[in-house]
C-alpha cells in the first residue's frame, strides 16, 4: 500500500518522522514503520468478551418470577423477602425479568420492579447478562419511561462492557429524561461523553433540571472538579489524567468489535458511522487501543480509525506518534493529516509541513494544509503564506481547493488579511463558497476578539444576515445571504485590512 508514495516522497516524510521523534527525551531514533497486519482479528482473538448468555426460562420459571414480582409490588411485609428470593435465582431470572419489563399488558409498577431487580442482578460479578438486558431495554423499549428507568439502573451495573453501546444512545435518545440517565450512567462508568448534555438539561430550570444537577454534583464530587472544568479536561489532552475507571477486558473486546464494524465487511455506512460515533466519544483508553488499528490490513479500518482519532481531538493526544508514522501509509495519509491537526500535538508540525510540499500527492497536501490550520501553530505560517501566494498564478487554477485550504489556514493562524479579498471572491463566485463564507466569518470573529478597528461593526453586519435560529436556508436564500454579506463586506474590506 505504501507503493503510492515514490521514494523521494517517502524519504522526505521519513526524515521528518525522525525530526518529530527527536526531543522526546528517550533517545529515540527514526521510528519504525509497522507492516500491515490483521490487527483487529488478533485483538479480538486475544480478548474475552462479556458472558451475556442467560438460560432460556421454563414456563414454571416465568410464572415464579411473575408471582415474586407481584409480591414485591403488592406483598406488604413480604416485599423484601420476594426481592431476596428473586435475587437468589441469579442468571435464571434475567430473561423472565426482561420479558416482564417489556410486557405492556402488565401493571407499570410490576414492570418497574422487574427493571429494578435486573439492576440488582447487574451489580453481581456475573451480572453481564442482566446489564445486557438493561441495555437492550434502554435501546429498544418503546416507552420513554422504561428506557429512562433501565438507563438509570445501568448506572449501578458492575459490567462496563455495555458502556460503548450506551454511548450511542446520546445520538439517538429523543426523550430528555432517558437521555439524562444515559448520560449519568455513562459518567458513573467513567465516560464523560454525556456531561455537556447533562449540563444543558440542568440549565433549563424545570423539574428535570434538578435531577440533572444532582447527577452533576455527584460527578463533581467523585472527580473533585467543577463540571465545566471536567468537560474542558475531557475534551483536552488532560483527559488521560482524569481519575476514571480503567476499562475491563470485556469493554476492550466491545471496542474491538466496533473497530471491526468499520471494516469493508460492513457495507452500510450507518453502522460504520455509529461505530465511529461511539469510539470517538469514549475516553483516552479507547484512543490508545485504536492507534494499533492504523496498521490493520483493511483500508477501511485504517481510514475510519484515523477519522475517529480526528473526532476525538486532543483527547487522543497519546496517539500522536502513531499518527505521525501513519502519515507514510498512502491510502490513509490524508485522513491522518487531518487527525493530526485535530489532535493538536506540536510534534506534528514538521511532518505536516513536509506533507504539504509540492512533491506530495495533491490529496495529501490539501489535507495537510487543513491539518496545519487546525493545529494553529505559528511555525506553519511562512509555508502556508508562500503556498497561498504561489497558487495565485493562473497556471495553478486546477489547485484552487488547495488555495482555499491555505486561505482558511491563514485565517486560523491569525493572518487572514492577505486571503480575505480572495475569500470574498470565492464566497460570491467560487465552487467552495460555503467554506469561504465560514472562513470569512472566522476572520471577522478573530479580528473582533483581537480588538481590531472596524471588525466589530463588520461582524455585526455579517451576523445580521445569518439565518434565523432553527431555519434551514433554501438555495435561493443561501445565495442572497452571501450576496448581501459580500456587498456589505466589500464596502469596508479595504479599511479593515489597511495597515
Amino acid at each position, binding site marked *: 500500500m505504501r507503493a503510492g508514495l515514490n521514494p523521494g516522497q517517502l524519504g522526505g516524510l521519513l526524515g521528518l518522522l525522525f525530526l518529530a521523534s527527536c526531543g522526546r527525551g528517550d533517545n529515540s531514533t527514526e521510528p519504525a514503520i509497522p507492516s500491515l497486519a490483521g490487527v483487529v482479528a488478533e485483538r479480538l482473538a486475544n480478548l474475552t468478551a462479556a458472558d451475556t448468555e442467560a438460560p432460556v426460562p421454563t414456563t414454571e420459571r416465568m410464572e415464579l418470577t411473575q408471582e415474586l414480582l407481584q409480591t414485591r409490588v403488592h406483598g406488604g411485609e413480604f416485599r423484601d423477602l420476594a426481592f431476596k428470593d428473586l435475587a437468589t435465582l441469579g442468571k435464571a431470572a434475567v430473561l423472565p425479568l426482561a420479558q416482564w419489563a417489556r410486557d405492556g399488558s402488565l401493571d407499570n409498577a410490576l414492570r418497574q420492579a422487574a427493571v429494578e431487580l435486573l439492576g440488582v442482578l447487574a451489580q453481581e460479578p456475573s451480572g453481564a447478562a442482566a446489564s445486557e438486558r438493561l441495555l437492550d431495554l434502554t435501546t429498544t423499549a418503546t416507552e420513554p419511561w422504561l428506557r429512562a428507568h433501565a438507563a438509570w439502573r445501568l448506572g449501578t451495573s458492575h459490567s462496563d462492557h455495555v458502556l460503548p453501546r450506551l454511548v450511542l444512545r446520546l445520538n439517538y435518545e429523543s426523550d430528555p429524561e432517558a437521555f439524562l440517565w444515559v448520560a449519568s450512567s455513562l459518567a458513573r462508568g467513567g465516560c464523560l461523553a454525556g456531561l455537556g448534555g447533562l449540563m444543558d438539561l440542568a440549565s433549563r430550570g424545570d423539574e428535570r433540571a434538578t435531577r440533572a444537577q444532582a447527577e452533576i454534583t455527584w460527578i463533581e464530587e467523585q472527580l473533585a472538579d467543577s463540571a465545566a472544568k471536567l468537560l474542558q479536561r475531557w475534551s483536552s489532552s488532560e483527559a488521560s489524567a482524569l481519575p476514571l475507571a480503567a476499562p475491563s477486558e470485556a469493554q476492550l473486546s466491545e471496542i474491538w468489535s466496533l473497530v471491526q464494524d468499520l471494516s469493508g465487511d460492513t457495507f452500510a455506512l450507518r453502522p460504520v458511522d455509529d461505530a465511529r460515533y461511539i469510539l470517538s466519544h469514549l475516553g483516552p483508553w479507547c484512543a490508545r487501543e485504536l492507534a494499533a488499528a492504523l496498521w490493520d490490513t483493511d483500508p477501511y479500518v485504517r481510514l475510519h480509525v484515523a477519522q475517529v482519532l480526528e473526532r476525538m481531538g486532543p483527547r487522543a493526544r497519546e496517539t500522536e506518534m502513531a499518527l505521525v508514522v501513519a502519515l507514510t501509509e498512502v491510502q490513509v495519509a490524508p485522513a491522518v493529516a487531518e487527525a493530526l491537526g485535530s489532535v493538536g500535538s506540536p510534534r506534528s508540525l514538521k511532518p505536516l509541513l513536509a506533507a504539504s510540499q509540492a512533491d506530495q500527492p495533491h490529496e495529501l497536501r490539501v489535507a495537510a494544509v487543513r491539518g496545519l490550520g487546525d493545529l494553529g501553530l505559528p511555525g506553519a505560517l511562512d509555508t502556508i503564506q508562500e503556498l497561498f501566494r504561489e497558487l495565485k498564478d493562473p497556471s495553478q487554477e486546477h489547485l484552487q481547493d488547495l488555495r482555499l485550504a491555505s486561505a482558511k489556514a491563514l485565517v486560523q493562524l491569525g493572518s487572514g488579511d492577505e486571503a480575505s479579498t480572495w475569500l470574498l471572491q470565492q464566497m460570491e463566485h467560487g465552487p467552495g463558497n460555503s467554506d469561504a463564507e465560514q472562513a470569512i466569518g472566522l476572520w471577522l470573529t478573530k479580528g473582533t476578539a483581537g480588538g481590531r478597528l472596524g471588525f466589530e461593526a463588520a461582524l455585526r453586519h455579517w451576523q445580521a444576515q445569518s439565518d434565523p435560529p432553527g431555519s434551514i436556508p*433554501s438555495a435561493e436564500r443561501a445565495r442572497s445571504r452571501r450576496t448581501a454579506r459580500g456587498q456589505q463586506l466589500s464596502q469596508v474590506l479595504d479599511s479593515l485590512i489597511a495597515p
Partner: protein
Amino acid sequence: MKKLLGLLVLGCAAWFMTELVPPEPNATPTTPVKWTSSQQCKECHQEVFAEWEDSWHAKSWIDEDVIAQSDNFSNKVCIDCHAPRGVFETGVGNRVLPRSSRRAEGVDCLACHLLPNGGVAGTISMPSAPCKPEAILDLSRVAFCAGCHDQHKTVTQWRETPMADTGPDCLDCHMPFRNGDPNRGRHHGMAGGHDLNLVQSAVTLEAEREGDQILVTVENVMGAHSFPTDERSRAADIFWRPVTADPDARGGWTHLHRIRDPYRTEVDIPSTLLHALASQDKTGDSPRRTIGFAPPQGAIEVALFYKLAPYYRDPSDGRVWKTEEVTDPLMDSSLVHRVVVP
C-alpha cells in the same frame, strides 16, 4: 474512383501503423498522463462533460440542500458518497472512501472512470486516445452504482423486484442512450428525483368519492424501486383543498398523508414508502395505498407534491414549517399530479 480508393488504402495503412503496430521497444515512452481532476476530461469529452456538469452528480457537494442537511458536511458520513474516491479503488459493489481534495467536483469523472493503476475505464478500449480507455464491463453493472446508491437502499429495493432478473436496470432509466441510439453513448445527466417528468411517470394519483368519504389512491407504477427511494431526504406529500376558481392559486391546502423513509435518528417516525410494484411477488409489499378522509361538502382537489428535502421552508427566511401546518406546499416542493373530485 481509383484516387478515392487509393486514399482510403493509404488512410487505413496510416491508421494501422499508428494504432495497431506496437511501438519500437526502444522508442521514447511518453509520460503517462496523471488524471487528477475532471477538468482534464473536458477538452476531449465536451458533450459528456457538459451533461455531467449540469447533473446532480456534479453538484453533490455544492448543492445548498445537501449543505443544509449535512450541516455543511460536519455530518461527515455524507462525505464518502458526496465526494468519493474512485469506485474501482475499493472495488465494484463495495463502499467508496471519501476524498480530501477536489470535493467541490462532487461525484466526478474520476469517481467512476479512474482505475487503481492510473488508467481510465470506458465502454470501449481505445489505446490511441489520450486517456487510453480500457473497456470495463463493470461500468454498466448495477453493483457499480450500489456502493453509494444502496446506502439508501435503492439497489436493494430494485433487487427485490423481478426486474433484477429481467431489467430494466439503473442505466436503462437513469442513464439512457442519447436519443435512444446506442451508437451515441449514454447520457451523463443521470436524471433522477430532480427530473419532474421522471417522477410523474413513476407514480399515479386517483381520488373518488364514496359516501361521505373521499378515497385517495397513490400507486408506485414505475416498479423498479420504492417511491420515493432514498432515506431521509426525499418525501412526497398528499394535500387536498376545496376547488378554487383559479386552479393555479397558491395556498388553502390541507395535509393528508406523507410518503417517506425517516432518517435513522427519527426513531418515532414510521417508514411509509410505496414499495415497488413488481416487488409484490418477492416481498409482498403493496405499491398501492388508499387513504380515506371526510372533507366538507363540495368539490375538492387532491394533489401529490414531491420534495427533495423532508421539510417545508419559507423561501424568504428559511423558517421551517410543520408539515401539518403547511397550506402552500409549492413554497418548497413540486406538483406531481392533481385530480379534482366533483
